[in-house]
């Protein structure tokens, strides 16, 4: 019997298997994309490349904030094999309790196959010792990273600091991963988005055991782009000198370049070495600083609210002149029955009143501004007058946003109708209730930055540019556009001359309150302030600018519990001006007197 036909059945079987295979292959390889996705997910690992933070230079190109190489000690818990905890703890210099704590935190974070940070920011010198033995402890490895470094160790609050991101930052900005650092305060915070750079991503293949292999070529990886370098407005030499002068004192020095609003020096005393707040010791050091009774972390320059004292008289003069309430020639008797005064004068004109800081004079000037007698009701009249005055004042940047880039600035307080209505009730107060604000006392509160800005306004004869920390973003960039526009105060330039002349007399005339601010060869214009503190010593205040006709620097100095403005703030201020303009000090005795002074007991 011939079974020849059966070959067709066999061929049919074979061909149908082929067809089934081809269809299956087509479906798997050409149609179903999920295998591809899964293969990528399993074989590739995306590693985020962290960019180095941008550097910060001072106005002369000196490094203010730099980066340094450090190592993070990482651990993959599932890779730990028979760990000798004691010798490991000795190696990384921690206690066994600390070790247990760290591992517990890592376990809590979850993902035993993932790399966790066991200890961050180890200095290369320490890491060299650790790395020598690290191979003995499986599961642990070092990972290079960078950390901030402050070469000169100055201007801690101006620079700010970096710290671990908070949960809030993680939630609000998807740029951040839990191990990231973020700017906290100062330039680091204000220019975080410029400094942080752009993260890169690189794809690695990993083998079937999860071990990372070579770079996956051709995938859409991107390299990390370092953050922008910033050129700050600070002058490191001047800053250093200011910090030196403020040693053993509480208070601050703020120096501005009047024409540009650039901050030349930003001293908040007592300060601290910003290098304390990086690396492994950061936490402990931070706690120490928080607990320090002198509050070194408190940014007095922008958060300290002080009564301005007599420097306020210049603002009053300018507003009154602009609105025609006084003329330079206006004389007012020094009637000391309502408000005290000092020095031998009795019937000053405006220049004299500023020079002698005549309290009754300015009490009367303020009275004219508040009691305009436009309304019959004297309470309503006073309220209207006060608010109109307040609007003029706020144009100087008092009680309103100065527009600075320094984070955490306070606006201060310029009381108006609303404020006094709240305290005394509507129509329950008149000028006689509130007159102490006429001479910069009472409910007035301003920050030292606003004081420095006042000096700049006077130096500029009527305008200012908001004080700012950064003059150039990136190597070829510029400053932010808002720091190129002048803000007008509404007071015409002509009215400044009388005030400036008076300020010059304050320093240069033998009867002036600020004889200690004299600098040979430089026309310094200044005004002292002595803010009363009841039984405690007065705060010593001095604002000044120089040279008179081409102002290059405006400085505000505020020394807490030091005494009169002329005796401490004025010489400190003049030393700053001299240092900046001449880069040398002509009177070493003046310097010596300041350096040895100490006002920390209150």
């Amino acid at each position, binding site marked *: 019997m011939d079974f020849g036909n059966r070959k067709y059945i066999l061929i049919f079987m074979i061909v149908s298997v*082929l067809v089934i295979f081809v269809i299956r292959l087509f479906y798997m390889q050409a149609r179903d994309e999920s*295998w591809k996705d899964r293969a*990528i997910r399993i074989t590739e690992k995306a590693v985020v490349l962290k960019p180095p933070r941008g550097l910060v230079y001072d106005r002369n190109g000196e490094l203010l904030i730099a980066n340094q190489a450090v190592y993070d000690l990482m651990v993959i818990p599932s890779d730990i094999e028979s760990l000798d905890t004691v010798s490991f703890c000795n190696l990384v210099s921690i206690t066994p309790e600390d070790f247990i704590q760290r591992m517990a935190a890592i376990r809590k974070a979850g993902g035993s196959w993932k790399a966790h940070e066991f200890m961050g920011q180890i200095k290369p010198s320490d890491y060299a010792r650790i790395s020598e033995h690290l191979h003995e402890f499986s599961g642990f490895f070092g990972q290079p990273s960078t950390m901030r470094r402050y070469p000169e160790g100055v201007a801690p609050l101006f620079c700010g600091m970096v710290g671990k991101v908070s949960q809030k930052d993680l939630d609000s900005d998807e740029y951040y991963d839990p191990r990231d650092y973020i700017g906290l305060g100062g330039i680091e915070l204000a220019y975080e988005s410029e400094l942080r750079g752009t993260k890169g991503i690189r794809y690695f293949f990993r*083998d*079937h055991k999860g071990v990372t292999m070579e770079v*996956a070529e051709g995938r859409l990886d991107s390299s990390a782009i370092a953050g922008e370098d910033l050129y700050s407005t600070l002058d490191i030499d001047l800053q250093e000198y200011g910090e030196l002068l403020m040693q053993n004192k509480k208070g601050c020095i703020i120096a501005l370049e009047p024409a540009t609003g650039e901050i030349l020096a930003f001293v908040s005393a007592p300060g601290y070495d910003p290098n304390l707040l990086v690396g492994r010791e950061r936490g402990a050091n931070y706690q120490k600083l928080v607990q320090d009774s002198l509050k070194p972390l408190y940014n007095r320059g922008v958060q300290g609210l002080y009564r301005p004292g007599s420097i306020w008289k210049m603002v009053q003069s300018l507003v009154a002149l602009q609105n025609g309430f006084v003329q330079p020639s206006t004389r007012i008797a020094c009637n000391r029955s309502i408000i005290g005064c000092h020095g031998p004068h009795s019937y000053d004109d405006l220049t004299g009143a500023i020079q002698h800081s005549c309290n009754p004079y300015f009490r009367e000037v303020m009275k004219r501004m508040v009691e305009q007698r436009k309304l019959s009701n004297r309470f309503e009249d006073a309220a209207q007058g006060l608010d109109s005055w307040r609007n003029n004042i706020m144009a100087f940047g008092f009680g309103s946003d100065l527009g600075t880039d320094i984070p955490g600035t306070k606006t201060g307080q310029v009381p108006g109708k609303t404020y006094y209505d709240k305290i005394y009730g509507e129509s329950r107060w008149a000028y006689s209730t509130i007159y102490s604000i006429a001479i910069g006392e009472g409910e007035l509160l301003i920050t030292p930055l606003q004081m420095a800005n006042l000096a700049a306004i006077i130096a500029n004869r009527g305008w200012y540019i908001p004080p700012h920390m950064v003059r150039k973003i990136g190597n070829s960039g510029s400053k932010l556009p808002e720091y190129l526009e002048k803000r007008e105060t509404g007071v015409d330039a002509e009215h400044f001359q009388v005030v400036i002349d008076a300020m010059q007399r304050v320093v240069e005339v033998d009867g002036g309150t600020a004889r200690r601010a004299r600098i040979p060869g430089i026309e310094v214009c200044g005004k002292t302030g002595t803010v009363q503190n009841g039984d405690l010593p007065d705060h010593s205040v001095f604002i000044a600018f120089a040279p008179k006709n081409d102002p290059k620097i405006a400085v505000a100095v505020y020394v807490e519990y030091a005494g009169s403005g002329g005796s401490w703030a004025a010489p400190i201020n003049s030393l700053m001006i001299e240092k900046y303009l001449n880069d040398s000090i002509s009177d070493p005795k003046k310097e010596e007197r300041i350096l040895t002074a100490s006002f920390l007991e209150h």
Partner: protein
Amino acid sequence: MIYSAGFNAEHASIFNIGQEYGKQFMFIGICAVLSVLVLNVEGNFYIQSAWGIYAVTLFMLILVLVIGTEINGAKAWIKMGNFSLQPSEFSKMGTSLALARFIALSKVEFRRFETRLKALAIVGAPAALIVLQPDPGTLLVFVAFILAMYREGLSGNILIFGLGSVVLGVISVLLAFSTFDYPFLGENSGIYILYVIIALIVILLFAFIRVFVLPRYRKRTIVQALVWSVLAIGFVASVDFVMQSDKVLKPHHKDRIQIMLGLIEDPQGKGYNMDKSKMAIGSGGFSGKGYLEGPLTKYNYVPEQSTDFIFTVIGEEWGFLGCVTVLLLFFGLILRIIFIAERQRSRFTRIYAYCVASILFMHLTINVGMVMGLAPVIGIPLPFFSYGGSSLMGFTLLIFILLRLDAERMSVFR
């Protein structure tokens, strides 16, 4: 392919016999020499010594059970220095020759039951020895001889029976895995539904026979139908029993069957091979990722990728185009062998050729089916591709003996 699969950047040279690809390269050399030898031997020698070769391969199969080395749970290798010999790869050739010789030259009528029994014994002996190793993959290859015997007159029912049992087996495993809420009886294994269905079919069948079959054939058909139904129920019951107990199939074999049917998913554990294998092939896409560019291959995600799972390398590196090319070449070869078989005057050569074609077909079907997830994971190499000297030599012998026999087809008059 083995170069890709076993690629080791530190030993990139293909001639490095410390690496798999180096060894395989050497095996290819040996096989080239072997093929020349085989082609130079009279075809008659193979016919005459068929029994002898068969006996030698049988002996080796017994030997391996005694002195063999166990690798991956199967005692299938005889270690000789650095190399191991896998007798089962050669027994395919021995059995093919013996079967061809028995059916072609013993001058017996294949239709006789006794002859068929003897033929089955020739295949069954090595198969039984392989079961003892155990090596289920190679065992399945021996099932391929049924195809060759079918060509020579074995009842076609056996193919239907085979196909039917596979279908029924799959259904019963699927049903046994799920449970149903039976009326009055409550929750129970789904397998009983199958019994009910078979019973219903039997009843329908009886009605069908009463209506359509002539009365004088009725008795025979009824008996046949009864036998088939009993066989079916018995088969379902035994499948269920096999899947329930651990005695017949090892647990991991059952797992593989259940994974293949999609009943359990465990890509990290039991289903790891299958999952990674499908992933490698599937991710290859239409044109593949390129030579040495497949990360799943490169980083050893697919276990056994140089041996049984070598098709995944083709799939990942060369994609759909590469896979289809390879499949077309293989099926072309099989069809070509059938063509060669059909032009023989010698019955021996024809049967032998069908044996070769069937073996290749079985290897291909199971291996490629396995890597694509169409068949359970069964260890069986892809001819000429998988790493392994024995397999390569075995297939070289199979093919070149056929070529020699084919070359002599004009001088044969039987």
